[in-house]
C-alpha cells in the first residue's frame, strides 16, 4: 500500500498504479522519496523505473544490516534521472539466504555494486554473470559488514594478547 503522503508523488504513484502490489510502503522524509518494494518484484520495478519513468542512472546499490531483527538485510537502490534531476530510493527487506534478482540487465553499473553487497553482506543476486568477491580476498571467510562480524575480524582478538 502506498502511504497517503506519496499519493501525489509522480513516480511513486505511477509505479503503484501500473505494478499493483509491488510497493509495500514508503515515505517522503527530508526531501527524499523511499519506496519499499516486494523483493520478488524488484527487477520489475527497476525496469519500469528506467524505461517508463526515465531513471536512467543507478547511483548505487548498498545494503544495511538490521541484525538481530528479521528479515535482517535491507538492500537499497539509489536511482537518479538525469532529466529533471529526480532521485528515488528503492528498498527491499530480505532474509539471510534469500536471493534477489540481479538488476544488471537494467543498468550495467549494478554489476560491481551487487558484487560489493554480496562480498560485504552475503546477499546473493540471481542471474548475475560473475557474483564473486570484489574487495575482500577471494578466500575470505564471512562477510565483514554484517553486524555480527566483529570489527577486528575473527582471526585476531585483542583479548588474548
Amino acid at each position, binding site marked *: 500500500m502506498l502511504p497517503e503522503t506519496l499519493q501525489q508523488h509522480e513516480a511513486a504513484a505511477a509505479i503503484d498504479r501500473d505494478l499493483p502490489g509491488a510497493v509495500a510502503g514508503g515515505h517522503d522524509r*527530508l526531501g527524499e522519496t523511499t519506496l519499499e518494494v516486494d523483493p520478488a518484484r524488484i527487477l520489475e520495478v527497476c525496469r519500469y523505473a528506467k524505461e517508463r519513468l526515465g531513471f536512467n542512472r543507478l547511483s548505487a546499490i548498498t545494503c544495511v544490516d538490521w541484525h538481530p531483527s528479521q528479515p535482517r538485510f535491507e538492500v537499497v537502490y539509489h536511482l537518479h534521472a538525469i532529466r529533471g534531476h529526480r532521485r528515488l530510493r528503492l528498498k527491499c527487506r530480505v532474509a539471510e539466504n534469500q536471493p534477489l534478482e540481479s538488476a544488471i540487465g537494467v543498468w550495467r553499473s549494478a554489476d560491481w555494486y551487487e558484487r560489493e553487497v554480496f562480498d560485504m553482506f552475503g546477499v546473493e543476486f540471481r542471474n548475475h554473470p560473475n557474483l564473486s568477491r570484489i574487495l575482500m580476498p577471494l578466500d575470505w571467510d564471512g562477510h565483514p559488514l554484517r553486524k555480527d562480524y566483529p570489527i577486528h575480524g575473527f582471526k585476531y582478538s585483542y583479548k588474548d594478547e
Partner: protein
Amino acid sequence: MSWGEQEHPVATFALKEQTPDTPSSARRMTLNMGPQHPSTHGVLRIMIELEGETITSAIPDIGFLHTGIEKQMEDLTWQQAVTLTDRVDYLANLSNNLVYALAVEKLLQMEIPRRAQWTRVMLAEFQRLSSHLVWLGTHALDIGAMSMFFYCFREREDILRIFEMFSGQRMMTSYIRPGGLALEPPRGWDRAVRKFIDAFPSKVDEYESLLDANPIWMERTKGVGFLGVDEMLDLGVTGPMIRAAGLPWDIRKDEPYSGYDEFDFQVAVRDENDVYARYRVRMEEMRQSAAIIKQALEGMPEGAWVADAPKVVLPDREKMKTQMEALIYHFKIVTEGYRVPEGEAYACIESPRGEIGYYVVSNGTSKPHRVHMRTPSFGNLQALGPMLNGILIADSIAALGSMDFVLGDVDR
C-alpha cells in the same frame, strides 16, 4: 559462502586453452598490468588479453587497498568518523568531509551559517584545483611530458599550504564537520588566498601553452579512449568524464548544495569524448574553480562559522574554560558523542572525480548505523573494461590516466 570450490573467473582468466597447434593469428597473450604499475596510480591490477598489440579484453581487479572504512565508521561516534572520510579519497579530502557533513546535517536538520557555507565552497574548489593538478601532472608524466609534473606540484604545494593554514593539516584536514567548520578561518587567510588566486589563471595558461598544441600530446590523446555517452550513463560514469562526452551534468549546478547557487560559473563541456576532451574539460574546470574562489574571496560573509547547536558543535576554547554548560557539552561530545535522530539521508556533491554520495543511516545513537560511500572512482572504473576494448596497448596508459581514479576511493 566462499569461492573455494567454484571456478572463479579472475583466477581462471589466463587458463584458456592454447596448444602449440593454435594458429598464430588466433593466439592471445595475457598481460598482467599491476598491481604495482606506475601508471595505475595505486594498486590496481588489470588483466589484459592481447591479440598482437590490440586489447581484446581488460578486466580490472580491485580491492588491494580495501581498509574497511565503512566498517570502522560504525565503531566511531559521528564526530570521530569525520577523520575517516579524509582517508577515502586522499586527493579530495575536503570534498569527502563536506559530503559527510551535509548528510549528517540533513539528518540533524541543521542550518549552517552562510560564512561556513561559503568557506566550504571555497575550500572544496581549492580541493578540485589541487586534485586536478595532481591529475594533470601525473597524466602528462605517463604520456611522457615530465616537466608538467614539476609545475603542477609547485602550485599544489601552495594550495596545501593554504589547507595547512586553515586546518593545521596539509592533507587529512577534517576541517569541514557536521555543524560548520572545525576552527575559525585563520587571520590573514584572505591575503594568502588572494596571492594564490591572482597568479593562478596565468599558470593555467602556462600549462596549456605546454600541452594544447604539442604534437606529441595531441597524437597520444586525440581520438583515444572513446566511450559513448549512453554507455557511460549505463555504466555509472560521472564527473569530468561524462562532461567530456557532451552531457552538461554537474551536481553543483543541477542540485546545488552549500550555497553553490549563489556563485556564477560555467559547466565545462566538450563533445569529442576522447582523452583530449577530458583534458580540456579539466583545464576549463580549473579556470571556473579559480573564478568561484575569487567570488568567495570578494564576497565572504561575516558572522558565525559554526551553527548555533551547542549539543553538536564543540564549544569555543575560551567558553569551555569559563562556562560550566560549555564544559559539560564539550565533555559530552568528546566522550559519548552527540545523538543523531533515527532515519536515513543521502547527500551527494560534485567532487573532482564525479558524484560522491554518502548514504547515512542512524538508529538514534551516537554512532552511525551504516555509512555507505558511493565513490566516483568506483563507478567510473567499471567503464574501464569497455573503454580499453579494441584499443592499442600503448594507448591504454593514456585512456587509464584520463579516468582520474584514486584507488583509495575505489576500495575504501
